[in-house]
């Protein structure tokens, strides 16, 4: 590689100014991704702290560490922060922001200034949330159900609602930017069916963001005006319908579950193909099933409301439609498995995270089918069974995928390699810690332990002790990447341009990439995952055995 030494290597981290001001006024999608990454890491730590306090309280059956009131505030804070300030932006706003223009061969997103604006809106909404927290928290749960939220709760509901309302616009702007970018900014030769599945996944996510988020926005706005001015819309005393709030809330929040999992599926497809060195099995079906999940996701919200008093026939239909989501989801799991089959598998850190994702997502998905059956749901509704189910999807799925993707693309983000041993160790620690935390919750939930209680009868104690022990291991597991990746930025070995030998345009530019991504505009001549071909890229460093 003679030209690597002779030509200057512009680098988005250094060129374009390294002062704080240059970073806060940047419109480079790669730098905006960093702004998001730092912010969501902060909120992840805040949300985790609330969760740890809850797990400590639940170590004993008596309510001894937190009062019931305080416990309510903790799980509300945990939910609000983790859903809207971590999970929703987690992959799209960080890895998506960084990678989509690189993967499609563009210089930036279609609207770079809008991209920066979306981060400022996020920060503004986050300020309201921090304010609500510091001022004493909220006790409505993350769902803000009326009339509890509109008439009875006396925490800082208005501030929390405004925070969520505002942050919604940041994801809408990200969504618009991604949709337009994927439609209009693809490099010559980058046809729709040559797009990496990561781009497909973020594209589908963007559609959900644009279509579902405004519904949440108007719904929360109506609750806000009811609290602030007394303009009662859901107020049953005026003949308003509190159940309508739940319908509208879940019309957003169920598709939002797919905002929180589809990008993870995109990451895993990239990782599995690269570390098995094979084409993704059934590329067309993989892309199609991403779109199918996004579409079906809009038709299933009623499965959150089986015991709310909605009509039994409506429940039946919602249950049936929810089963349908399992079809494209299963296609994805089977196709990942088929991709692994007879591949040259390397158990790098990223691969360990991806394999963890597949296992945990499968458990989360199958228990989702149980919950979509009305007869079972009536039994386990509002128990720890539900808590365990959605944590398997959102934490076991999305957070695993986020960390896997972060490790995989870290050499591209920073130009540095992290310590491979500690990377693998963290993947295993998180996998074990996660299962230890949440698998007991399936069991105690099925036995009848209800969610959102700070004290419980002693028969559940062993399961709670296991779960709390797991939470400590999980917390340690989450700190390891923070240390390992942080250390690599200071001391890590320089990464080559393509340390994993991956296909994809992002690996064809330098690490870290120059400000406008490519020295020469790329032209695409082949499909996305041509690992089988003779001239497939080779790892730009020695692979560990």
């Amino acid at each position, binding site marked *: 590689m003679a030209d690597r030494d002779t030509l200057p290597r512009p680098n988005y981290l250094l060129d374009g100014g390294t002062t704080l001001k240059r970073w806060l006024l940047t419109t480079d999608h790669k730098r905006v991704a960093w702004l998001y990454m730092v912010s969501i890491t902060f909120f992840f730590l805040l949300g985790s702290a609330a969760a740890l306090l809850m797990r400590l309280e639940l170590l004993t059956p008596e309510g001894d560490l937190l009062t019931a009131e305080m416990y309510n505030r903790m799980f509300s804070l945990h939910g609000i922060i983790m859903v809207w300030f971590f999970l929703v932006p987690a992959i799209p706003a960080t890895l998506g922001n960084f990678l989509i223009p690189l993967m499609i061969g*563009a*210089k*930036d*997103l*279609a*609207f*770079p200034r809008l991209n920066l604006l979306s981060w400022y809106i996020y920060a503004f909404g986050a300020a309201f949330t921090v304010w609500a927290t510091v001022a004493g928290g909220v006790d409505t749960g993350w769902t803000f159900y009326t009339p509890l939220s509109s008439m009875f709760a006396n925490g800082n509901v208005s501030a929390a609602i405004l925070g969520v309302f505002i942050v919604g616009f940041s994801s*809408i702007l990200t*969504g*618009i*930017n991604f*949709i*337009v970018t994927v*439609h*209009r*900014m693809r490099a010559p030769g980058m046809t729709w069916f040559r797009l990496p599945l990561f781009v497909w996944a973020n594209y589908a996510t963007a559609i959900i963001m*644009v*279509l*579902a*988020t*405004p*519904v949440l*926005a*108007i*719904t929360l706005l*109506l609750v806000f*005006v009811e609290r602030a*001015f*007394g*303009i*009662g*819309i859901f*107020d049953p*005393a*005026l*003949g*308003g*319908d509190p159940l*309508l709030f739940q319908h*509208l809330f879940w*019309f957003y929040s169920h598709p939002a579950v797919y905002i929180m999992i589809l990008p993870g599926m995109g990451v895993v497809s990239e990782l599995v193909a690269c570390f098995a060195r094979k084409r993704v099995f059934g590329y067309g079906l993989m892309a199609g099933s991403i779109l199918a999940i996004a579409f079906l996701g809009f038709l299933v919200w009623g499965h959150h409301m089986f015991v709310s008093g909605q009509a039994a026939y409506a429940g039946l239909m919602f249950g049936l439609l929810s089963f349908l989501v399992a079809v494209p989801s299963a296609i994805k799991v089977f196709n990942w498995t088929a991709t692994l089959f007879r591949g040259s598998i390397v158990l790098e850190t990223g691969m360990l995270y991806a394999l963890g994702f597949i296992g945990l997502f499968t458990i989360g998905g199958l228990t989702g089918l149980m919950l979509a059956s009305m007869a079972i749901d009536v039994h386990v509704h509002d128990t720890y069974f539900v808590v365990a189910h959605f944590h398997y999807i959102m934490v076991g799925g999305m957070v695993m995928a986020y960390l896997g993707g972060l490790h995989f693309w870290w050499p591209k983000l920073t130009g540095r390699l992290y310590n491979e041993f500690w990377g693998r160790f963290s993947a295993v620690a998180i996998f074990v810690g996660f299962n230890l935390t949440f698998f007991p919750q399936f069991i105690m939930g099925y036995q009848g332990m209800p969610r959102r209680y700070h004290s419980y009868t002693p028969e559940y104690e062993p399961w709670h002790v296991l779960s709390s022990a797991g939470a400590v291991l999980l917390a340690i597991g989450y700190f390891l990447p923070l240390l390992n990746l942080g250390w690599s930025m200071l001391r890590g070995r320089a990464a080559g341009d393509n340390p994993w030998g991956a296909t994809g345009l992002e690996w064809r530019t330098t690490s870290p990439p120059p400000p*406008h991504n490519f020295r020469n505009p790329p032209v695409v001549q082949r499909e996305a995952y041509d690992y089988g071909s003779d001239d497939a890229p080779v790892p730009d460093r020695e692979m560990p055995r």
Partner: protein
Amino acid sequence: MSERPEALRFQFEDLDQQRAADEFGMWVFLLTEVLFFGALFLVYAVARWNHPEAFIDGSHLLNATLGTVNTAILLTSSLAIAVADLAVREDARRLARWMLSATLLLGLAFLAVKGYEYLLEYRHHRVPFLDRPFEWPGPDAREGRLFFNLYFAMTGLHALHLVVGCGLVCAMLWLNERSRLPARLTAQVRAAGLYWHFVDVVWVFLFPLLYLVR
């Protein structure tokens, strides 16, 4: 490589790509707006389904004449901004200035009429919130409150969008005087126009639902 036009932003390859992206972006944004108002229309539909009598009585209490006047004003403003869009494309800046001014004035006129309606409702004790006294001639005063709550929420949100629209048209007026780059101005006026039309379309649904359907 040929000279890059000055109006071309760095991330695009040519002006066609830039124009297509700008316009598409605005359409996707409007899609969001449709869902934003759409949920509110759904709330209205459910409330009306549950309490048809109260909503019919409430509709009689609104001033249909002023509503009709406002509809005419707003539709005319849409015509004006459509002409402005064509004028900017032909680089007829004087015509564009007149048409944008007309749009702005008509928009402000709408807001003035709407404000006057609110004032009348305030005087007649039809404001059911902020602890104001509320009078309702019919039997179901509680559902009447719900009707007026929805009326103020829906028309208020629409008026807020119109205020944003007026701000956009002001910006377009300023750009129309200052801009040296016709290609960029065309895209900007096109985006502002699309937004303005959208706000009109919302009113086209609000007007019959609130004032006319009895």
